[in-house]
């Protein structure tokens, strides 16, 4: 009785093992159904999703103009103090003083890519970029100035 049970146990175990191995074998001879991607070999063709949150960027148009008014809404919305906005006062043609953006400091090393700053921006001046390869050789390179040198605010953005 014991021998019979023992042998049937071995038989069942081997049988169930082969049922599993059959599945493994199927993929062994059907390599096209395997979905592994070969990063970084596929860098040229790799396209991140449109909304992918890689880093905060500030798009500039061809006249080197951005849409940031320096209202610091993003600075207040950020949970990690990633953004620091330095403002300056510019003279308008009418001779009035007007607040404008001087430097948009972005600390990438503190950023968690939560996207709250983009959500808070009233003028759509900042966006989330698709770049995800952030490694640099020195930590200070992670502190970025987002507005281009010499850039100014776009006409009509309040």
């Amino acid at each position, binding site marked *: 009785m014991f021998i019979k049970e023992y042998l049937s146990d071995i038989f069942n175990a081997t049988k169930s093992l082969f049922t599993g191995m059959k*599945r493994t074998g199927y993929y062994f001879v059907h390599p096209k159904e395997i979905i592994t991607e070969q990063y970084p070999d596929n860098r040229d063709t790799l396209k991140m999703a449109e909304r*992918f949150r890689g880093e905060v960027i500030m798009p500039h148009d061809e006249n080197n103009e951005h849409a940031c008014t320096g209202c610091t809404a993003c600075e207040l919305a950020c949970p990690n103090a990633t953004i620091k906005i330095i403002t300056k006062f510019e003279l308008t043609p009418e001779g009035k003083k007007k607040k404008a953006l001087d430097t948009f400091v972005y600390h990438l090393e503190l950023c968690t*890519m939560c996207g709250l700053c983009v959500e808070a921006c009233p003028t759509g001046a900042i966006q989330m970029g698709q770049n995800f390869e952030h490694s640099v050789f020195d930590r200070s390179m992670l502190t970025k100035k987002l507005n281009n040198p010499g850039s100014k605010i776009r006409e009509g953005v309040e």
Partner: protein
Amino acid sequence: MYTETQILKDTTQTAANGSEGELVINVGPQHPATHGVLHLVITLNGETIKKVEPHLGYIHRSIEKMCESLTYRQFIYVTSRMDYLSAHINNHACAMTVEKAMQIEVPQRAQYIRVLMDELTRVASHELWWGAMAMDLGAFTPFFYAFRERETINEIMEETCGARLTMNYMVPGGVMADLHPDFVRKVKAFIQLFKDHIDEYDELVTGNVIFQNRMKGIGYLSKEDAISFGCSGPVARASGVNCDIRKLSPYEVYSQVEFDEVLQTEGDSFARYLVRIAEMKQSIRIIEQLIDGIPEGDFQAKTKAVLKLPKGEFYSRVETARGELGVYIVSEGGTTPYRIKFRSPGFSNLSALDHMVRGSKIGDLMATMGTLDLVIPDIDR
């Protein structure tokens, strides 16, 4: 309170063995089988476990304290880092508590999106658990099979929410952005993929005799013990406890969908395994019911830029992939909470581990821990 099983186990411990031949070993904090920085101090007699003592605090980031200095919009993103496998559901719980306190009416479309995302997250979480648990037991292949399906969900998440794991998609009043135009098509493709492949799981692992022998009758947790330890989620449901928050106090549109609360009464590791496998199928069933009828409309209710909660205490709970997550906010009427407390499912489930594995072999400890589906950052917070 002593239960029958406990007394039995205690006598085997003291009378027969004594302190002679006792061996204390450390599993973790860096150990491949604990899936994180969990430190278990195990007292052994030969290969038999006498006591398991979890030591916590290696990944404590004081999230509850951090939340006290963040506004009600900001604190949601931190909770993604608690139970990172069901980040969506954590965010959902926090957003829901704020909405409850401020009496914000969430648009119907946002409710549908939230539930869809929750269920996708639950499937993704259980997929990962299935792969990781099989790996704990020495089977490496299932890990890749599970990640194939999980990858599809991650891509859907990436497209709509902008991130794969820590989504931060929920905001008080709705969701951050509207669904991606491809969402419905991709989810339907995923459902088809899942249905094609779920049988492979049974073929590979569930029916395997070696696997069943390592699972059946191991890590037994009775119904009474599951309740007294405060277990929730699949761990409690495998012991026959009705504890699905989606059924007990339905939130969002869970009251409108049909699904079964998966219950098993065996209470062993294999029952917990079966509950999770069946739960994946139930999640797919919920998604199937909702995916075609997403109503048009706003995805976010109009809220003020600065949220101020009224003075008082607020609590809401949701069913995450691991069990019941409760969010408790004490507000003094300002823009930041006075105190936040999270009732995380992993902590209570871990506390039952010692009771479950006493008297069994050390190999069974790994199998039992695998079925508990522990996420260590969720336990420590």
